[in-house]
């Protein structure tokens, strides 16, 4: 188990999270290698299925990196994403999957550290959970 490296999909907002990524780049920080970013025009584009499909495709964890609730360029996109994350979290236990494998983080455009910290926190959390029971 000690060699387990979780594979994680991160759905990131093209505004706040992308700006945060810009700052982390300037700070010389890097994302853990096991986090794979898929950029969305707005986290409001996120569908519950995107979370489930990522788990089906072999991700051990999936998270959403969206805006602060009051600074979404599309007003309430991240709130929509929040609802879907909650819905999927509620669904997962009935499939025998831990709810914690899905999460949402609010980013701030200026905070590069948070962008990377969220990724690391997710990796650690999922590492503790072990491989996804949906794999093989």
């Amino acid at each position, binding site marked *: 188990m000690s060699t387990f490296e979780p*594979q994680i*999909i991160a759905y990131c907002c*093209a*505004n706040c999270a*992308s*700006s945060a*990524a*810009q*700052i*982390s*780049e*300037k*700070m010389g*920080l*890097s*994302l853990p*290698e096991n986090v*794979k*970013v*898929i*950029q*969305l*025009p*707005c986290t*409001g*584009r*996120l*569908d*519950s*299925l*995107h979370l489930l*499909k*990522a788990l089906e*495709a*072999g*991700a051990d964890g999936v998270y959403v990196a969206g805006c*602060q609730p*009051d*600074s*979404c*360029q*599309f*007003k*309430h*996109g991240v709130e*929509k994403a929040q609802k*879907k994350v909650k819905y999927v979290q509620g669904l997962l236990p009935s499939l025998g999957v831990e709810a914690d494998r899905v999460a949402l983080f609010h980013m*701030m*455009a*200026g*905070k*590069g*550290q948070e*962008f*990377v910290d969220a990724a690391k926190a997710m990796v650690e959390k999922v590492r503790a959970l072990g491989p996804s029971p949906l*794999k093989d």
Partner: protein
Amino acid sequence: MTETKEKKNKGNVLVVGGGVAGLNAALDLAAQGYHVDLVEKESDLGGTVAKLHRLYPLCSCCKAANRATLCKMHPNIRAWTQSSVARISGQAGAFQAVIAGPAGESAVEADAVILALGVEPFNPQAYDTYAYAAYENVISSIELEWLQKPVGPFQGIPKRPSDGQPPKKVAWLQCVGSREINKCDAPYCSSVCCMYALKEAVQLKEALPEAETTIFFMDMRTHGKGYERYFEDAKQKGVRLVRSRIHSIEKAAGTEDLVLEYVDENGVKQSETFDLVVLSVGLRPSAELEDLAKMLGVTLSEDHYVAVDTFKPCETNVPGVFVCGGATGPRDVHQSVVEAAAAAGKAAALMKGVSGNGAVPELRDVSGEAPSVGVVLSLCPSKLPEFEALLEPLEAFVKTLPGVTFVERLDLQDGAAFGRLSERMKASGVNRLVYASCTPIMHQELVEGAMKDAGLNPSLYEFVDLRALGSTPVEMGRLQNLFRTAVLKARMLEPLNYAKVPVKKSALVVGGGLAGMQAALAFADMGVPVTLVEKKDRLGGHAHKVRSAWKGESVQDLLKAMIDKVSQNPKISVLTSAEVVGARGFAGNYISTVLQGGQKKEVEHGVVVLATGAHSIKPNEYAYGTHPEIYRWSDFTKKLIDDPGAFKSAQCAVFIQCVGSREPQRPYCSRLCCTFAVRSAIDLKTLNPDMDVYVLYREVRTFGERERIYKEAREKGVFFIRYDLDSKPQVSVEGGRLKVLVTDPILGRPLVLSPDFISLQTAIVPAEAADLAAYYKVSLNEDGFFAESPAKMRPVDGETEGVFFAGLALAPKAVEESLAEGWAVAGRAMRLLRQDVMLVGGAVAEVDPDKCAVCLTCVRTCPFHIPFIDSPQGHAFIDPGLCQGCGMCVSECPGKAISYRRLSDEHIAVVARSLLGSAVN
């Protein structure tokens, strides 16, 4: 390359200063098809804003970086960094300048010049009693900004210079280098420091929740839109405020801590120790301004900024030379951006160019072609050395991927790089592009432009985000994964539909007050026909009740002149006693319904300006309505306009400030009332020096250069008495006489005043605009004023393209600010109106009529209220001209009837599988 530029463009503008004002002016002009030479003395564009950590309301510093990148790469903008204007001569339409830079001197010709030299922070060493240079833990606010930046020295956690420990108790001293002539020659208020000190204190508490923060201030000037709420929030968050100007800073014996002595509001002497003291330094004009002004013959004000006629904002005394931002006086970012747009508008009006960027290249039909992908690697210069070793093997790998036709690197330092990319795409016949960079969003416009130039549908590209990656050889696996996925995704892309819609080159302006009339005149000046709709039976709006601007200039003279100009201008058709009752369409293509005299009439227009104004409330306090000599300020000044000697024989006058403003039910500052009361007090004192004039205030907000008249009023003997919300003045009528009871905070004793009249400076509330907001799909804020675009740093743009705002409908403001906004909207709108044809569609949501169950989910979901049910067709309809492409309705639609072909569900699933490829196999 220079030659083609000159052929293509209508005129050239020299913009001096690459800060937020200069960047915006340059981009606004370039978007209208003009060429810009942008001169910046530093090695990077961005100016003061780039040095700040976050701006109110949230973070918009990234938007400045974004604009800097666009300026550097824009084909119509030549950015001269580390450069200055060595010599300049000539006149409007024919300026000759010599720009001195690292490569020597170059001659540049310009039709117009925009001075955007910005500001510099005051050097606090002049305050010997603050010992800025001697004590390590006394720092300037600009230094604190740097300490607070996540990319700064301590990852955003401020530390004390003396020992590198996080500070526990921090004090801000306001007005260092402002509102003072003894230690610095700056009688003006710098306008921005109250707000930035609050922001720095809030941010410091966020980084160090245990830290105590105290701001020592004279008047808390939070007069901007939303600023008062921020002030209240800051207090809630534990930022402490002490009303006192600190005389000197002493060092606590044996430590690097600092002792501040002050007299509190109860008159008791206090001594407090802090471990960090921040000097809130004021603004100074750029050091280069004076020489440049001299060369151009531009007059400077007594405060050494560019002198501007109050009613001609952004104009200098020299025709063809315009000014915006900090070069005109202390300005916040918001005002700087407004002025940048206005200056760009005025420069464009001067050049009167003909439409130049109307041609839209034909996009090749690639539907029958097998995917052929070009891959571009564009690395920031900062990335190159560490990444270098990975690049060659990476390129070799990418070449082997199925469908890849070429791989090349793009040098971002090279202004012609995107032009060459376009040629390469054409020559190689590729039909898809993968673009890898460290700034994927910032380059989107440039990449799409290059694709269009190559005749490729701009939706046929995919980007690879190279940020936040490591640079060690182990990264190769991750990079290969990213590129494999991106090429796979690019091959799946289908061209999106773009409809070509001709732009209706005319404007509709709603509201015939000063802002609306100024906007109409600006459009007319640029050759654009305007329909001006006014609800009342005459033009002018509330300006009929405004006597003078802050220096005493007659607003009535201005108003009369403007009404004449508007009425006589053949380009402007005025509809009075008329109202907009409906609208349909989108940017470039609106049809609005105007109701006039019972008749409905349709007006076609490309853009709309909402300038519906505001008015002052009728208060239900201070005995208003019980005595004829208790006025609202608008009625008070109306009386003075009609009879200038009306109050000449009065013995005592009382002005009461903040009537209905800055209270829980209306938590905003009405911005212009302090200046109004001070101006009126001076005028009354001039009329009758024996009159006792009292101004009862909560904070005196004579921001910027207006501070001069506050000083003048005190010199003339006007009494200023401060009151708090919990001890408001009491007004009563006794035996027909007015009586005002107020507690003097300095004497600590109640004062009884017997004025002949009282002027109540009542709150400004916006005209009812919910219907208009709904017609044009824009929003009102919680106070009923129009909300500007959430995209930030677009102070006069609505959230829907083609809709603009000016004047008091946005927020309370002074006459000159409304006039600037009138020009700013025209400047912004010309970006659209200079085009002959708009491409509509692209990354938008599309409804499949067969799947739509008319459940209204999309109608309820859309943040911009775009989808509606097309009843005859029996399904939801999303106008591609209006859709902003967030994709929210796509994922909410329960029937999956809405698709988003730029990033479909299938794309997401395939990309996820590909990215996880190594894990699943």
